[in-house]
């Protein structure tokens, strides 16, 4: 029965110092919607919680020259209310808004969703498709990595001791571009993705695809960028042949497991189905932009 300490530093430097000193038993505390549940279930028994919500920068959404910066403690509800962000990255925001319920939305953060390192995290495929990157602060200073390099296996991140995420950067969207996220769950909400697909598309003036990124969640140990998708889409219009090839590429990229949430066979098939459906939505959005 080790005691539990709670700290609420007001600066990034103080947070880094606490985390570095706390070692393996220290945890960053953002919304707590994963953390507190895991503690309650006795899956983890940390001895130090470092609450990052009192650090001012982590609470802000700022639009900068090349990107929009989302502080690590900004909640899902706050993202959904930011009209400019919703217009820019509707797919990312709709992925975030799928997390939990109204109540959970008031606490949950995208950085927490990413750092929890669940292969089924909803916002992660959408962020990978968007080409987002992660700002990390640590004992040796700050650096950035692409979102897809954060999770290394279920529940494990590439963060070193003392490091934490301060913000997430979404690039400014070019015109003629759109994104979308779809997930499959057996119910309609309060469920964990059996398959998740994020897609971001940029179109040429002639209506063909200029660039595309497609990412899958819940069908492998970590969310992944399906590199073959871009080759299938770029230069083409969205016809049945392209969609069929896209579905196969998505299914081929799957290496899921059988578990309480779904079977290998089902996940592999539905990844292809959702890849096509999400691409169609992103495409329509791109045509309108």
């Amino acid at each position: 029965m080790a005691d539990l300490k709670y700290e609420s530093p007001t600066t990034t430097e103080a947070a880094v110092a606490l985390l570095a000193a706390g070692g393996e038993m220290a945890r960053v505390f953002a919304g707590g919607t994963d953390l507190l549940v895991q503690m309650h279930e006795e899956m983890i028994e940390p001895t130090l919680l470092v609450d990052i919500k009192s650090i001012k920068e982590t609470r802000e959404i700022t639009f900068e020259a090349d990107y929009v910066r989302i502080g690590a403690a900004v909640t899902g509800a706050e993202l959904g209310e930011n009209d400019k962000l919703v217009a820019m990255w509707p797919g990312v925001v709709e992925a975030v808004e799928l997390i939990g319920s109204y109540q959970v939305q008031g606490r949950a953060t995208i950085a927490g969703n990413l750092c929890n390192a669940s292969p089924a995290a909803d916002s992660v495929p959408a962020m990978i498709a968007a080409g987002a990157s992660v700002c990390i602060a640590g004992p040796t200073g700050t650096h950035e990595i692409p979102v897809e390099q954060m999770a290394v296996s279920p529940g494990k991140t590439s963060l070193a001791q003392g490091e934490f995420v301060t913000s997430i950067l979404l690039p400014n969207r070019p015109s003629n571009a759109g994104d979308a996220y779809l997930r499959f769950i057996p119910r309609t909400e309060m469920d964990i993705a059996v398959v998740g697909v994020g897609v971001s598309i940029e179109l040429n003036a002639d209506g063909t695809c200029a660039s595309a990124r497609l990412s899958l969640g819940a069908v492998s140990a970590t969310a992944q960028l399906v590199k073959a998708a871009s080759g299938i889409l770029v230069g083409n219009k969205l016809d049945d042949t392209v969609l069929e090839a896209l579905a196969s590429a998505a299914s081929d990229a799957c290496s899921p497991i059988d578990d309480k949430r779904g079977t290998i066979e089902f996940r592999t098939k539905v990844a292809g189905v959702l890849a096509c459906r999400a691409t169609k939505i992103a495409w329509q959005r791109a045509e309108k932009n």
Partner: protein
Amino acid sequence: MSNDNAKTNFQWVGKRTRRPDGVDKVTGRARYGDDMSMPGMLHCKVLRSPHAHAKILSIDTSKAAAIKGVKAVLTSAEIPDHPLSKPPYAPIINDMHDISRNVMARDKVFYDGHAVAAVAATSERIAKAALKLIEVKYEVLPHVLDPIEAVQPDAPILHEDQFTFLGDKTSEIPSNLFRSSVGERGDLDQGFGEADLILERDFSSEPVHQGYIEPLACVASTSEDGCVELWTTTQGHFVIRALCSSLLNIELAKIRVTASEIGGGFGGKNTVYGEPVAIRLSQITGRPVRMVMSRKEVFRSSGPTVGSRTHIKMGVKNDGTITAAEVETWYQAGAFKGAPTGRAVETYFSSYTIPNLKATVHDVCVNRPKVAAYRAPGAPMAAFAAEGIINELANRIGMDPIDIRLKNAVTEGDQSLGGSVYGSIGLIEVLNQTKNHPHYLAPLGPNQGRGLALGYWMHGGGLSSVSVHLLDDGSVTVATGNPDIGGSRSSMRVMAAEELGIDIELIKPIVADTGSMGYSHLTAGSRTTFATGWAVINSVREIIEKLCILAAKKWEIDVNDVSWEAGHAVSTKSGDSIKPLSLKELAAMATKMGGAIAGHSEINAGGTGAAFCLQLVDVEVDPETGHVTPLRHTVIQDVGRAISPDYVEGQMQGGAVQGIGWALNEEYVYDDQARLQNTGFLDYRMPVASDVPMIDTVIVEVPNPNHPYGVRGVGEPTLVSAPAAVANAVENAIGKPMSSLPLSPPKVLKAIEQIQVAAE
């Protein structure tokens, strides 16, 4: 006793009134199981088996007992043992031998989550820490989860002392099969001989949990003179008292049980889990002990309803007459005997006049938590198979699904397979109302299907006690011994107001503890509004009689010249101009003219009336993912008389929603060691609000001639037909028989792919 079941001009019955429990529930003032706290109270936590089937070789509690703050550690050695019960067996067996082993494993554990030891400590945190220090040595044994595998010769045997009961003898070797219920009539050979089409099909369903939102919780406080006070969330505190008394060898009068407000039960809170353990820990420590289960514990250790495997055969003539049916079903009882096999026999085909029938239902032990009741125990899985094969037969002979049911429908004088003889029943009305309902006539879109199914349920009667007190100011308390899980306080109040002829707001309904009231059976079996309501009517009529005597005394006239009308005693002597006395005036006089006025009734209610419920369901199936969306759902049910229509509709809707869960996604997921994987609502997928459409209700009222107000049981029939109706809708949407619940997306997608492969 006057019978008003044909009466239609009610003052309060059938009205939508303010609910008496509403304010406390929405303000949070209502006290549920874990809202009780007492000075000096200890907290109990239970160590549970990580194995599905194992011998307990040893339990060392010394390290746990040594922690500061730990006041007692308990194992089965502290729970009295009882001999195995012997034949003849009751239809529902409460075998103390089994119950004592279920609340605390004795020499073997029978399922993942089975209680092995318990700690009482000064905080929950200390109790949890102590659990980790209890050392249990197990010898792990092979397990079995499926009831058909469990009756194979090479299956692991759970109970070496259980032999199959064969009526006049028992099996020679131990068996997981405890007994089989059989119902039979007519001549099967002849019946199948007359059929133009015979179908055979296998069905299966999985155990499903009641999913009550309030986990199990209780507080026990015992005293040096052997008395016990128990506070618990339960559907029947008199039953809890009886079980604790028998199990712990304490006189009934020394145990006083108070039922907390209850956050759902659905049959799952009809028996004991933590109560005997909390009582024993309180006796050992001399302090109150509280035990609250987490959701995970509820899933791992409390009883769901049975899963089933069924083989069914049915024959029909081309004109739709069903000539014969034969069915064999295996029910999973879980760790101890007691699957609701008799209720299954009673329910099979009981909506139909099929002359030649046989149903055999087996009670089989497997390494899962012991089953508990769940809303119409044993019936929904039987209806799933029976209504499923009728759906297919109707499709094959090209007959409308309502017409085939009308053709074979039971009417007054017919009998169920279990032997119930129907009085006046509303089945034909239910079928006719469905046929004319806009839902039945509405067009369907692509990938959509419509299904319907019929359910039958014979609700319970039995023992109920009621005390009604008229107070000095003319207000009234109505005390019953039945916890209110579905609106019984409201219905009791309505019936009392109707009899008295006063405003319902003057009446306060309460649930009294076991020390204040005669024996009252469970709030279960759809019995409470029927049986306890009847006792309320009796009690109030006793009060009215007393008030008439009082008025006669006051007026110095013969009591036969006084009657009770619209809340007043009136003189019926012709030409008499005596001013009527109101209830309020009489109440004020009572204490000065003889004493307080109360009415009591302790009854054993017979005269239950069969209830029929039809559900009409539209679904849309996503052909690429197998996802099923329920689009429209209508429940048409004969309720006898809707005392409180808001609650009646709530019952009809609630059963439908639960049935949607059974049909589409609910199931227990085990790993290869038979450890339960989905121990929370995140992965045990009960429907959430957005999963279900508005459930429309059609209340049909064909009064039950045996009840003063014509009441039939309402709570259960609505679940009986729901899973079958949803499954039939999916079947009709994709054009392929769907025989295995739940119809989860992977299963439906696979069925669709098989159709596509077959078509190519």
